[in-house]
């Protein structure tokens, strides 16, 4: 079963929930799709780590053969090419790797080149198989890295996908193969606003989902009200505790430190399995 963990903003506890959920499950896979700032490895400290490069094809101008016909610049929807004095200037950061310019060039003045944009890293931490994507600094889109990472994940068993924050393309790519989505939310008005955006996204994708309320406090709880109003199951409520914050800030995994936390995340896993059956 593939479980995606997402939230409308950073800092709600996606990695915290994902890491602990993977540890609470027996022999699970953890996949860090937060490719712009992958921090799952700070908790798992996986060993040994292997790294595979991720590349995307971009056009490269081979000097001398351009007739200046503009067919490539006219075709490119992203305006990643300019033609000046029978030379093609390629703006790689604008390119979406469609390959159209190479096909349309009558002079074969453009050829394909692999551009390195990041890595997929793999390792092991106790009984957890660890995967993590990393996008190179300055790259525009992390989607190809997430695609490369998702392709390497095993088909069977429990796979926990730690998503990037928000609801943009990289999140859509991360949840695409998931059978259940866990929405992590804070019990605040601001938290609800962010919950709303990811709820809208998973609904659009037709995914089954449930909410984890993190940093839960007694009293007025807008997140709880939102779930009630939209009939979204609240899977667990994680208490707002200094000891949890401390463990997390030290890069330790709560489930591996304390039985009560292990029980909490086992309960979360059971709840997810039950909701997924419905």
């Amino acid at each position, binding site marked *: 079963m593939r479980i995606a963990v997402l939230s409308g903003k950073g800092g709600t506890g996606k990695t915290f929930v994902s890491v602990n959920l993977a540890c609470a499950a027996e022999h699970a896979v953890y996949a860090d799709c937060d490719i712009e700032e992958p921090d799952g490895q700070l908790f798992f400290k996986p060993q040994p780590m292997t790294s595979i490069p991720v590349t995307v094809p971009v056009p490269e101008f081979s000097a001398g053969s351009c007739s200046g016909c503009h067919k490539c610049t006219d075709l490119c929807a992203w*305006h*990643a090419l*300019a033609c*000046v*004095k029978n030379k093609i*200037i390629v703006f790689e950061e*604008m390119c979406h790797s469609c390959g159209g310019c190479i096909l349309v060039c009558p002079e074969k003045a453009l050829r394909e080149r692999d551009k390195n944009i990041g890595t997929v890293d793999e390792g092991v931490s106790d009984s957890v198989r660890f995967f993590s994507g990393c996008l190179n600094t300055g790259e*525009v889109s992390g989607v190809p890295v997430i695609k490369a990472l998702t392709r390497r994940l095993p088909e069977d068993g429990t796979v926990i996908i730690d998503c990037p924050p928000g609801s*943009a393309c990289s999140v859509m790519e991360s949840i695409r193969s998931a059978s259940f989505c866990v929405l992590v939310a804070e019990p605040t008005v601001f938290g609800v606003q962010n919950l709303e955006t990811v709820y809208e996204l998973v609904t659009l994708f037709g995914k089954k989902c449930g909410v984890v309320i993190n940093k839960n406090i007694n009293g007025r709880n807008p997140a709880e009200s939102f779930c009630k109003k939209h009939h979204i199951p609240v899977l667990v409520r994680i208490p707002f505790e200094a000891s949890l914050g401390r463990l997390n800030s030290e890069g330790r995994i709560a489930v591996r430190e304390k039985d009560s936390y292990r029980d909490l995340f086992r309960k979360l896993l059971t709840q997810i399995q039950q909701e997924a059956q419905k």
Partner: protein
Amino acid sequence: MLISGVYMRIAVPADEKMPETAVSVSFGRAPFFSIYDTEDQSYTVLPNPGADASGGAGIKAAQAVVDDKVQAVITFRCGENAAKVLEAAGIILYTAESGSVSTNVLDCAAGKLPVLASVHPGFHNHRSNA
């Protein structure tokens, strides 16, 4: 600086079609380019194909200006991608001053406008939710 007597076509990003209009604050997103020809002292209007582009506006705009065979551009600012295309074509960038397209063109032809000192990194890829 421009040397008087040399034939030139000068492109100016413009908000409207008439030469009396103000110089557009943007190069890549300007709706039009006003093209001045020093030989017949006439203006023509070049619609900017990059004006409504979702991305790469500066590149598209610069391509149109290059294809129109201009030698100079007068602008308040220019993104680095557009500048790369313009510079490859040997086009010189001059700094616009407040006032109309026509006063800028006259001042440029008289050698009064300084060359654009710097290009900015561009406003591309700064969309929300990116």
